């Protein structure tokens, strides 16, 4: 609707904009400007992913090849990160170790989220199941997660699959609790009540109205689980209850370097640096996601 102004009326002249319009930056550059920490974390994580995928082409040799004549060499042109007490190339082992760490981190995050989502939805919608499930989860949460993973690993043969399984079991209670909490609060929302009143079946309510709204907090939680799983995997391998020693994982390299760390500290420090950087990257992505999803929380934490 346009306003017609009668001729002869005194009208203030249109004011020019003092400040030019702020164009929201789009694309990759805009994203980086808006979320510098998240972009930094994502870049680091992508770099690690690149290392994991292309480990054989980055100047590495066979990470399990022994060279007894070339034991415990200092970092040099031949051995970029030195060699360990069996003469294996630490650089190659650390690079291949990225694969184990990322595999365990992502697998645990996905498995624990999926199972936790299922359990959480079930206990959020069924009172009887809820009281039983939550008692079990309370009990499981009372066992410190690392100890639970250790107890599970003590029973099984060390393998990457078993490590993933053990850490997943240890992480499930926290995810279930989170999803259940979200489901319980969503159930009271007017839009869900409206759906119930208009005769929507329970499965449709769960999958169309509840499930999509649990995904945002679940994704944030999944990144933290991924970070925690990487640390737990390294700890399990470090104390000898994780991936079998034949597979180069960061925890295993550190465990093997332990005997010599006072004289050859680099064997321990190279995998340690890689582990810390990777976990930091995942945590930064998680913080960025959390801030993007819940700006109210961003101000607080």
């Amino acid at each position: 609707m346009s306003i017609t102004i009668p001729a002869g009326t005194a009208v203030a002249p249109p004011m020019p904009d003092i400040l030019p319009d702020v164009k929201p930056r789009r694309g990759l550059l805009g994203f980086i400007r808006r979320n510098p920490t998240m972009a930094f974390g994502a870049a680091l994580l992508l770099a690690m992913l690149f290392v994991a995928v292309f480990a054989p082409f980055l100047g590495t040799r066979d990470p399990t090849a022994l060279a007894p004549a070339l034991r415990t060499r200092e970092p040099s042109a031949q051995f970029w990160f030195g060699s360990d007490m069996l003469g294996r190339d630490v650089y190659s082992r650390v690079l291949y170790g990225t694969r184990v760490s990322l595999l365990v981190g992502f697998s645990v995050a996905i498995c624990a989220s999926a199972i936790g989502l299922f359990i959480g939805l079930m206990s959020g919608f069924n009172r009887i199941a809820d009281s039983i499930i939550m008692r079990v989860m309370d009990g499981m949460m009372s066992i410190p997660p690392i100890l639970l993973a250790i107890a599970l690993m003590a029973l099984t043969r060390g393998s990457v699959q078993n490590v993933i399984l053990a850490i997943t079991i240890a992480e499930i209670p926290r995810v279930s609790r989170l999803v259940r909490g979200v489901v319980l609060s969503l159930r009271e929302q007017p839009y869900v009540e409206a759906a119930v009143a208009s005769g929507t079946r329970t499965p449709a309510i769960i999958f169309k109205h509840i499930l999509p709204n649990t995904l945002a907090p679940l994704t944030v939680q999944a990144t933290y689980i991924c970070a925690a799983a990487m640390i737990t995997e390294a700890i399990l391998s470090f104390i000898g209850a994780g991936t079998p020693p034949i597979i180069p994982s960061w925890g295993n390299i550190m465990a093997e370097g332990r005997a010599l760390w006072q004289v050859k500290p680099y064997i321990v420090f190279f995998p340690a640096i890689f582990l810390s950087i990777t976990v930091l990257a995942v945590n930064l992505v998680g913080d960025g996601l959390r801030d993007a999803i819940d700006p109210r929380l961003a101000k607080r934490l």
Partner: protein
Amino acid sequence: MWAYILRRVLATIPVMAVVALFVFSLLYLAPGDPAAVIAGDQATPDDVERIRASLGLDRPYLVRFGAWVGDIMSGDLGTSIFTNLPVSTMIAQRVEPTLSLCLLTLVLAVSIAVPMGVVAAWKQGTLVDRAVMGFAVLGFSVPVFVVGYLLAYVFALELDWLPVQGYTPFREGFFPWLENLILPSIALGGVYIALIARITRATMLEVLGQDYIRTARAKGANQAGILFVHALKNAAVPIVTVIGIGLALLIGGAVVTESVFAIPGLGRLTVDAILRRDYPVIQGVVLLFSFVYVLVNLLIDLLYTLFDPRIRY
């Protein structure tokens, strides 16, 4: 209030029952014959038979669980397969180092993290705040053993200020005891400091926005008084809750820290037990830690009624 306390105490019984059932069942969840699993790959059939008899595997599952719980109630955690000593004796020998390490870490972490969080909240958005939050992210990301080796390398090997590894019992003097525990406590405290500093800052920011803080400012109370008396007191409940929940991190981290610094505590006992597949010992340690965790969080819950007179259930 007494009714609340009774209700809260009774509520821990099902939790502990689930923990006990879970720890007990772990052995039977593993595929294959539990006796063979414990005995390991190099066991002779005789070994497997001996273990089968000592576990009482010929009896029904629930009967075994009942007998096991009965034993635990009377303080008998079973017998180590490797040393043939009672598990309770082995644990008792190892409690002091772990308890010392955890208590010192707790004291250290709380006395560093709480002021850090308070200052970050007070100077919100400044460089100090950013530094504290950055430190928190780092604390969450750098694993315990990395910090441990780094500290040991710098302060023990290079500078030679503190002993590299080992443990001196408390009865041999306070300072030798402290000297050995400083580096492990700092290493173990990293995650814990990050956790407590974050929650302190978050709660303080909320409290500092309240009307009574403005009133305190208006009447001319000094800044330190406002922060630590008016605000921190009212932010105490969430902070103490996180300290209790974070105990799980502390316990898990202690296992690793003890390996790095060669401290002969419960963590080392666990690691040795894993390598020897000494399952009764692992069960005993996991049960003990879980029990302590539940108990501490129960005590914290009950303490709230003292901290905050507004809480009445």
